[in-house]
Structures are given as C-alpha cells and as structure tokens.
C-alpha cells in the first residue's frame, strides 16, 4: 500500500516549563498517519496523548523534532483550516442555536449565506440531527450536543478530524451508539481521524491504527495496526480477533506503566 502521508512526526519532543520545574510531556514521538486512517491515541492520564493531538493542531508548540500536517507545518495547516477539532466538551455557544453554532466556523471563514445553510443541513443529516437546527444547546442531551459539535467540525471542508476524548463524558450506551455513528460517518466522508481516548474497547472498535502511549515522559509504547475488517458491527467486540487486539493494547499500557 502506498497511501498519501497526512500527518508525520519525527523525533517530536515537548517540555512544559512549570513552576515545579520542567515536565517532559512528549519524548521522541515518531509517527505516520496516512490518508483515510482512523488513529486512536490511548494511554493513562499524563501520557501526552492530548498534547500530541494539540501539537498537530498547532495549539501547542513542540520544543524539538518536526511535525508536518498535509506536508506543511501545523501552523500553516491551521491557517489553511486543514482540520476540524472536537473537544472533550461540546463547547457549543449557549446563545446560538444548533444551526447557528454550526454556522459559526463558516461565518468566520467567509462562506456565503446560502452555502452556510446548505452545509448546516448537510452535516446535521450526517450526524442524524436533522430538524434540530432551531433548537438551543440546552434543549439537547449531552450526546446530541457532542454530535452537534462533531457536525460543526465537519461543516467546512477539512480532510482531517482531530477528536480529543469527544465521548469521555458520556455514558456507555450513548457512547456505543456514537461510536457506531462515527464509523459510519468516517466511511461516508473518508476523513483522516485522530482520536484520543481512555477506553480500550473504544480504541479497538474504531481504529485502523492504535497508538499506545505511556507517561513520564509521554512516549509511544506500541503501534498496533488493526486487522479488523472495515465493516464493524457492534457485535465484533465479542470476536476473538477483537479480544486479541484489546489484549495487546492492554499489554502495551501495562508495560508502559511498569517502565515508568
């Protein structure tokens, strides 16, 4: 397979200067994400998985090594609006309707009114929220709010979707449902997705590639290429293959922990 490289890091290092001395958040991260990959970053708190995602999004500046997104620096990629970012909390503006919230990045990027309306209805349909555009965020459940936030990240034509524990605050049933939806959405849109999570089943279920990270300093413990088929019903989680991959992830996490 000779796929286009979308995100690449080489020897990436990041040290935060804090009042308690330097914190080595990322150490020697070498990673390649190819077009259409669904890459999960999994690891315990403080392993730098969110920081790594934020470096790719130009929200943190690395102190060493290189990172390229679409072949350019993360800063240029951000200027080009190359990615949509979904945060842990939905972060919808309470004074805007769902439609208004999704329009927000489009307004900032200068899309025409007609184009805005068209895109809003398109992405709302994509996350199965059609008909909710006139509702205010507080009228929606937590899961629906997070879906609206994903719709907002999809509204403009970014090929990359970076998601930082988007379903972390939701209960398991809602989470399962959203995971299924996310896979369907990924299949339809062919986006390249970076996905930070705490949950092993979530990582295994969603990903084509699982990056297991370990803390102090944050580094990559293992990279697992998933052998699961692209079509993944929820029941796949009971298959032998799934359990084997999950096992390998757990081993990676465990190893990283005992070394740290």
């Amino acid at each position: 397979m000779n796929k286009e490289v979308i995100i690449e890091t080489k020897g990436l290092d990041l040290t935060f200067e804090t009042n308690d001395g330097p914190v080595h958040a990322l150490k020697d991260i070498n990673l390649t994400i190819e077009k259409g990959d669904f890459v999960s970053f999994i690891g315990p708190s403080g392993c730098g998985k969110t920081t790594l995602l934020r470096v790719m999004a130009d929200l943190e500046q690395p102190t060493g090594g290189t990172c390229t997104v679409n072949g350019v620096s993360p800063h240029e990629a951000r200027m080009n609006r190359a990615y949509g970012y979904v945060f842990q909390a939905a972060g919808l503006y309470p004074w805007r309707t769902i439609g208004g919230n999704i329009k927000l990045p489009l307004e900032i990027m200068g899309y025409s009114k007609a184009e805005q309306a068209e895109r809003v209805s398109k992405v709302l349909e994509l996350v199965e929220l059609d008909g909710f555009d006139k509702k205010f965020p507080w009228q929606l459940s937590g899961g629906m709010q997070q879906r609206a936030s994903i719709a907002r990240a999809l509204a403009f034509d970014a090929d990359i979707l970076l998601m930082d524990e988007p379903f972390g605050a939701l209960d398991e049933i809602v989470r399962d449902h959203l995971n299924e939806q996310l896979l369907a959405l990924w299949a339809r849109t062919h986006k390249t997705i970076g996905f930070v999570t705490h949950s092993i089943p979530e990582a295994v279920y969603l990903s084509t590639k699982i990056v297991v990270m370990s803390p102090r300093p944050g580094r990559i413990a293992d990279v697992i290429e998933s052998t699961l088929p692209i079509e993944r019903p929820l029941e796949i989680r009971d298959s032998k293959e799934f359990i084997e991959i999950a096992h390998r992830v757990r081993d990676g996490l465990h190893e990283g922990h005992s070394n740290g």
Partner: protein
Amino acid sequence: MKSFAPVLAVVSAIFVIWYGMAVVLNSTWAYDKAKRADVTLSFSEMVADTMVQKKPLLPAPHQVAAEIYKTTVLKKITSKRSLIWHGWITLSATLLGFAMGTGFGILLAVGIVHSRAMDMSVMPWVITSQTIPILAVAPMIIVVLNAVGISGLLPKAFISMYLSFFPVVVGMVKGLRSPDHMQMDQMRTWNALKPTMFWKLRLPSSMPYLFPSLKIAMAASLVGAIVGELPTGAVAGLGARLLAGSYYGQTIQIWSALISAAILAAALVALIGLLQNITLKRMGMLR
C-alpha cells in the same frame, strides 16, 4: 404574583416604622408648642399634631405623598416648583453621564482585556479613582469646568460618569474574560482573528455580566447627578430641591425630593432589568 405578598409585608412594615418614628420624633415639637400655649395635650391630640406639622423633624408618609402629588400633578411641568421639571433636569444629567460612563467603561475593559500593559497600568487607577470621596471632587469639577465655560448639564454628567464607569469596567473585564481556554482554542482552530473572537465570542459571553453592572452604574449615575447639583447653589434638579429644603428647614420638601429620587432610581434600574430580560431571552440564555 408569588413575590407580591412578601414585598407587601416589607412595605407595610416600613410604613408602620415610619409613622411610629414620626410620632416619636415630632412629639417634642408638639409638646413644646402646647407648653408655650399653656395647654396640656392628650396622647391622641399629640399624635394628631405630629401628623400635620409644617416643618416636622420627620414628615409622615402621607405628608410626603401629598407634597409629591402637589408638585407633580398640580404644577405645570415648566414651573420651577414642579418636581417633574426638577426630576427631568437630574434625569437628563443621569442618562448622559450613564451613557458616557458605560461607553468609557466598556472601552477601558476592552483595552484591559486585550493589552497586558493596560491591565497592569490602568486597573489600579480605576480602583483608586473610586476611593476618592466624590463629595470632595464634585465641587472642584463643577468650579473648574465653569471656569473654562462649561456649565449646566455636562459637569453633572461628568460626575455621573466618574461614578458609573467603575462597575461597568469591573463587570465587563470579568465578562470579556469569561470564555474558557477550550472556547479560545476552538476559535484558534478555525484560524479566527482577534476581532472575530471579540465579536463572536467575548462580547456575547460578557452579556450576563454587563447588565448587573449597568444596574449599579445607573444607580451610581443618579447619585452622581444629585451630588453634582449640590455645589451649584441649588438652582435646579432634585439635588437642588434637597439643598434648598435643608436651607429653609423644609423637611417635607427634602423628603419628597428624596423619595422621588428613589422612585426614579428604581424605575431606571427596572428598565435595565427589562432590557436584560429581552436581550438574554433573544440570546436564548433565559430558560
């Protein structure tokens, strides 16, 4: 409707205390008069007298109400004895000062939020400005501005502004800073520029902070306008009525001006409350 009963209870308690105090405070003068006229007053005669004195120590509520009625409804608005005429003089200075103070306050807050230098240098002076007793500064402002040929409305509005910009600065700085890290990062992922962040995120976020500040600013503005009227030699305005009343011992006039000022302040603050409800409702922030 639920809040009606407690409010009514408090109002009646105030009236009972007021009438009681009027009887107690005015009784001395009632007894003095009786003594000079060589008559002894029964208790009920004394009470009756305390309710109708010309220059009581504390006028009874109905006396104040009658005075207000007399000087509003029964006088032409253009008359210098009309409380509406005086009220309008004060109100115009209040509103102008409030507008100036709000504008100035918001401008300062925007500067403070966006510039670290301004944050460090301006904020201490903003706070210091409020520790200076306005009663001491007001005459100087009036005199100085008079000396350069500015008189009438503007000097009073200036004092109003001096008092009213402060709550607006404090509230708006807090409000404009209320978006959290995540919301700011979110804006950055869309490559939004500072002005966009201000108009689309900071300003709307600050609205729930702005209105309580405006209420305080409005009340402070009225106080400023009244204080500004005192050193002008009691020409016009509610402050002038207060001062003139105290010159001539017209306690009823003082109290009616005082009550009118209170009613005016309550009405203005209620108006802002209404504006707040409409704005926040339209923004979907009132549930």
